[in-house]
Structure formats: C-alpha cells, structure tokens
C-alpha cells in the first residue's frame, strides 16, 4: 500500500503495509540508516526521530499513523553543524555509537521545546538507554548543547 510521508523536508511515497513501523520504512525503504533498531518495544530509544519536532520512538509507530513531518538524524544537519551534534563531538560522548543517533534526537527535540531546560526537564527528556554507559558524557554534552544552542539563537 502506498504511504505518503514528509521526511527531512521532502515528500515521499513508499510501498509498505500500513502496520509497518516507521523505523523500518525509514531504514529499508528510504535508506535512512541513522535511525537504529534496539529493542523494537519502545524501551531503549535507539529509534528516536522527530515528528513535527517532538521526539518519537519510531519502532512502535505504524507508518500509516504518522501525520506530521518526520525528521531523522540525517535531517538534523548534513555536516554535523547542529548544536547538539557539535556538543556531542566536543564531549566525545559516543563509544560504540549505536545509541547516539537516538540520544542526539532526544536532546534536539528537548531543546526545541525548552531551550533552557531545568535538570528535571533533562531527566524527563533524556531517557534513552546506552549499553556502553556513556551517560556521564551525554550529560556533559547536553549542558554544552544548551549553551551552543542559545549562542546560535543569540
């Protein structure tokens, strides 16, 4: 069945069963491989993308139910210039790197909604799991991202 989506600013039509999770449509039909599969049950956040700017775990989102514009890590920037990516590089956060697309997307969505998040906001937004245990560096990266983001706005 044809599904119409807007992904990273482009209108696309893909052939997929309506119940197919957005994750697999992005990865297999659109070749956007930055969004990762970790648990398939909404528990780890490796598959986090934005729908209309809000963080969504795409492994549980049926493609037919997607109503807004989808942004993936590839759509954040083409050259790592997004403040969250710059912060992640500065903090040298990734280890294996597998969870990091999702972590970055979660942080980017948070900053969009709350450019000056409180610690409680950060805890509420940054719930993605990391098996390599990079949480300490992610925390550092989030703080840096807040600064870089507000500098960019200023």
């Amino acid at each position: 069945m044809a599904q119409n989506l807007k992904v990273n600013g482009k209108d696309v039509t893909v052939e997929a069963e309506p119940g197919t999770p957005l994750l697999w449509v992005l990865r297999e039909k659109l070749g956007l491989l930055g969004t990762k599969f970790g648990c398939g049950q909404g528990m780890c956040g490796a598959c986090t993308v934005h729908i209309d700017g809000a963080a969504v775990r795409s492994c549980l989102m049926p493609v037919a139910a997607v109503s807004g514009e989808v942004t993936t890590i590839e759509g954040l920037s083409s050259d790592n210039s997004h403040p969250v990516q710059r912060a992640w590089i500065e903090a040298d956060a990734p280890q294996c790197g597998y969870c990091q697309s999702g972590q970055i997307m979660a942080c980017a969505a948070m900053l969009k909604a709350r450019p000056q998040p409180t610690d409680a906001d950060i805890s509420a937004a940054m719930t993605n799991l990391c098996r390599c245990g990079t949480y300490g560096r992610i925390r550092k990266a989030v703080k840096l991202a807040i600064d870089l983001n507000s500098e960019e706005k200023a």
Partner: protein
Amino acid sequence: MKTDQETNNPVGLSRRFFVQSGAATVAGLVLGFHLPANPMRRAEAFAATGPTEGKAPQAAKLNTWLRIAPDGLITIYVAKSEMGQGIFTAMPMLIAEELEADWSRIQVEPAPSDAEFNYTGAPFEITGGSTSVRSTWEILQRIGATARHMLIAAAAKQWGVPAESCRAERGQIVHAASGRKAGFGELTAAAAALPADAIPKEPKLKAPSEYKLVGKPMKRLDTPAKVSGKPLFGIDVVVPEMRYAAVRHSPVFGGECSNFEALAKGMPAGTSLVKVTGGIVVVADSWFTAKTAAAGLDAKWTKGATTGLSSKDIEKKLRTAAGGKKLPVAASKGEPDKVLRTAKVKVEAEYSTPFLAHTPMEPLNCTAHVRPDGIELWVGTQSHTLTKMLVSMATKVPQEQVIVHTTYLGGGFGRRAENDVMLQAIEASKAVGKPVKLIWSREEDVQHDFYRPASLVKMRAGLGADGLPVAFTASIASPSIMQRWTMFGGLPKSGIDMTTIEGLADMKYECPNQHIAAAVVDTGVPVGFWRSVGSSHNAFYVESFIDELAHAAKQDPYKYRRALLEKSHPRFVKVLDTVARMAKWETPPAEGRHRGIAIAESFGSIVAEVAEVSVSADGQPTVHKVWVAVDCGRYVNPDTVIAQMESGVVYGLSAALRGQITLRNGRVEQSNFHDYTMLAPHEMPEVAVEIVESGEAPGGVGEPGTPPIAPAVTNALFAATGKRIRTLPISSHKLTGGKKS
C-alpha cells in the same frame, strides 16, 4: 526519494573497493610487513619487506598497515574491531607518534580479514581479552618508525644531506641547517623507490619522554561519523538484491523444529522458510514482514539439552559439585585444612552469581552472500579472521573463497566473538540464492546468548591472632566456557577452566595456607565470554569474602586489604591508597550514605573502586558515586582509559543491581529490556577516575573496570544495612531501610 549510494556505503564497502583494486595503481607509499608466524613474537624483531609502490596490498601479499598518499593523507589499517573501546583511535596514535604524523591528516580503515593482517602471526586475529593495545604496541611503533626513517632517507637523498641532519615533525621532514622542508606526501614516491637496504630492520623508537600524542588525551577519530548517523554498523549494510531475514530459535537449547516441512509449504507468497542451525529463518522483502511471519508460525520443537530444566535445578547441581570431594585443584599451598581445624575464628560462606546476557545495543546481525565462487560476509565481529576460519570449516568452502567485511560494532562485550549468526545468515543465503541480511530480534538475543556462566563457590577462612587470614579455601562450580573453544585449546586435561578461576586462584592477598578447587558442571545452557569473563564473578566472591573477614576481625576493610597486600604487591597498595584518598575514605560519609571498597586485577590492569550508596526507607538502593583508581601500566589515550572505566562500571552495575538470566522449563524467562534491564540514565552515579602512573607494561582497559563494582556496591550495602549479599543480583534481596551512619 532516492537513496544515496554514497551514504549507503558502510565502511566495509569502501574497504572492499580498496582490496579489489589490485590491478589499479595505488599511489603513494604503502608499507607492508611480513610477521614471522610465531604467536609469541611480540618482542622479536621483524623485517620490513619494503615498499610496494603501485601495488595494492592484496596483490603484494603483504599485511599493509599504512598508506601515505601523495597529498599527505595517511591511512592506517587496523585489524582489530572497533566496538566502542576506542581502538580505532589508540592504534593510529601509536603509529602516528613514531611517524611524527600530522594527527589531523590521519584516517582509519578496518584491515581486510586476511591472515596476512594478523598482528601476532597467529593463525587468526580476534578482538577480546582487552589485548589490542597490549599485543600490538611495539608492532605499531615499529611500523611508524620505519616509515619515518624511510621518509627521512628519501628527503636526505633529494637534498644531498646526511639523514642524521634531518628530522620528522608534524607531517614534514625538516632540514634545520638549510631550512628546507618537505611534506610526507611529496616524499612518498622517492621513499617508495628506495632500495631495500634503506629500510631499517631495527628502527630507533622514541623514548617515552619524547611522546607528543601517546599518553595525552586525544579526541576519538570515529566520533564525527558516529554523531552524523552514518551507516557504520553491520545492521546498516546494504548490498544489491538483498533480502531480509528474521530467526526463531528453539525455545529450549538444542531443540529442533519438528514440523518444518509443513510450515515451509504454507509460507505466504514472497516469503520463504529456511531451517538453520538452532532454529528457523523467514526470508522476506522487509525485516518487519519476516519477523511478523516468523512470530506467527505455529512451530513445534523437539526436546533439547535443557528440556525441563529450571534455575533451581542448576543451583542444586552447582552446589553439589562445589561440595564435592576430590575436585580438580587449581592452586594449593601449605595445609589449609589442618590450620582451619585449629583456627580461633572461622568464616564460612557460600556465594553465587547468575547467568548473564550481553545485550549489545546493536542486535546481532549478519549479511551473507553465498555464490558459486565463494562466500561474502558483512558483519560486526570480534572474531575478525577467526570468523573466516570457522565459516570455512563449517561450510567446507576454502578460506581463500571467504571474504569477511568487518564493520563497526554496536557493542560487543564478548557476544560478538561468537559466530552463530554468521552461519545462520550463510544457510539462509544459500537456500534462497540471494544476499540475505539476518537480524535477530532483541527477544532472540536475550534468549539465545552464550551467557556468562552461572557459578557457585564455597569459601572458608581461618583468622590468626592478628585477625589476618592464615588459611583460605575455595571450591567453585561453573559451566566451562573453554570446553567449546577448541581453537583456544579447549578444556585442558587438568579439568580446570582458566576462565572459571581467574581472579580467584591467583588472588593476591597474603595467606600461607590455601586450596582452590574447581568443578565443571554441564547445564546445557550455552556459555561464553562476557566482559571481564571469570573476574566478573570471582572479584565479587573474593572481595566480598575479604570484606567478611575484615568485619570478623573488626578491622577497617581498606586497611585490612592493605595489610594483606603490603608485603608483595606495591602496585595494588598504590591503587588502593589512591582510591581511598579520592573517596576520602577516612572521613565518614554524609548522613545516610555508606561506602564499600573493592580491588581486582584483570587483563594486566589493577582497578580499585569505592562505591557510595544509600538505601531508602522502603529498601531501594541507590549508588550515588563511584571512585575508580586504575593502574593499567603504560597507556595510549588517557581519555579512553577514563571512558572505559566509566563504561565498565556501568556494565557491571547493571548486572549487580538487576542482571540475571533464569530458566524455567528449559527456557530463558527474560526477553527484552523490561525484564533484562540495564542501568537507566537517571540511575547513573557520578564516576570519578584517576590513573595511577606506574610505567609498567601496558594492561587492558576494556574489561578491568567491571569486576570491582559489584563487590564495592554490596560491601557498601553491608555497611548500610548489615546485610551481607552473597548472591547477585541485588534486586533478589529484600533490603531493610538504611541504618544511620
């Protein structure tokens, strides 16, 4: 939207181009070396067989480590797997140091998985045992130094000056007297044309005091790619005409699908069912279709090795075995039994730990293409050339016809040393005649791992008048990991699996009378290497028990340990003192907080940790802070050492708090991250790491951070509640609200 060919090229593919460009000219200076086929050759000299200008490494049959292009870009080929441990940065640092390269002009590529690229000259290369830096340090230095000497020789010849008057500096050769300079890139052609005798056999290496990169904190080379969403991992591989596959394993270990033929006939159009080792695989045009179809099959299974078995039965088996007389002896000295009979204070305890799954964040996967001319694999593997060997053995396809492209690994932790998923992907591709990407669901991963073995140990100690132990015995029972790994020698005649006793039989605490025995118990549950292997449980056993002894002797746990190490193990004492200072051990913690300490040596590194905990009124433990002191000898990238300690702590803490794989009726009860959990961000303690400088031989860093954390936490919980935790995970105990400090 069209998928972009460029961005769809995972690392494996660009390397493939390189290897297959044998006929084309590879410009620049390519350095290859033959290593003598002796696995122990680490410290021996090896001869450089010279530049291979114009030839791709494959054609030259050399292990090519280094390529300097005419534009000065340096490519370093690494025959180790990057799984987060930072090896794609550390190994290039060692080469760049000796080469005097401009660090900003370095790029890394995974080396082809050909035996020529094995560092050690062993028949295969693996990434495990925290060995990468340890086993290659000197080799890499020599590669860098050889290239430097050649570039200097080339420049000196061009300028008509003595080589001694030139030096290398940040990617250039400099002749100070005349002020002449030439970039490495400009010199590659001349260097490659040097006669063979211009290649130094014993290049002079830098003294550590001259190091500019090694020992300094460096940013990881792979970070930019990892924050951009680039397709780096095995799961991201795309090859033309590829099909997707999902597996369903026999729910009990060792069972087989008994109604395969009937199921295969009823498959919907566009899908096919293949019987593979351990289960059945559905191949379809998308992974979700394959997975949904696999889940919907009414598969019947035969009995297997674990049919009817439950965790309680396993525990009983282990207890009986550990209590056995006449067990194989791992270490023994003095007369512990006799001394124990007369000891005034005796301490006896039984400890145990459960099976654990690895759950790397990237689910297991492999893309295989079986063709008449051979097998091509794309996979994130820790086994590198071993994969090739095992695939060749299993399929009877000669190794020369097996190509393995190693991608980045979304975590390994020992799980990706195994080759089960590769063989299944091969079986599926062979059956459908197309390339197949097989991805395991998280549920299949949790339920079909090669688990950290469950084990149980009985320990006894007698204390002397000064409270220090005069006798210590331990008998441990565990399934054997090595039994299955015949390539590594299997289970030796002695009946002692080294991985069962590491960190126990070689315990460093002073004690004149000791007896350590170990029994192998078969359970039918597959077991394998889990980050820090035997030390993952033995540090918990030894460090908890030593804490019990300190308590029985009414002595401070830090000072007690120190007294037992003081005489013969100065490095341990220094590490212990460092962590005690960091944690301000002598100063009581804040109200409601409690501390525990532990120290363990593994993989050539000594790590001590102090954990600070509190227990809520309803018995919930919280780990607030962890201090880590590590002596890993000489190290390459201190930032990586710190990151690996943090990582090791989190990995061990996840296991200590809630990690367990249990069996019921032969099946694993856990299935995903809701019941096999890992530490969540809000549970992350503050972790402070300090490196203790010893200048000793380099030790590993990927694993040694893990062993001490469980006992540091349980010892702290003892301080908090008076309850001694002798079985993990902590969540299986009811803690009573914390006492006041």
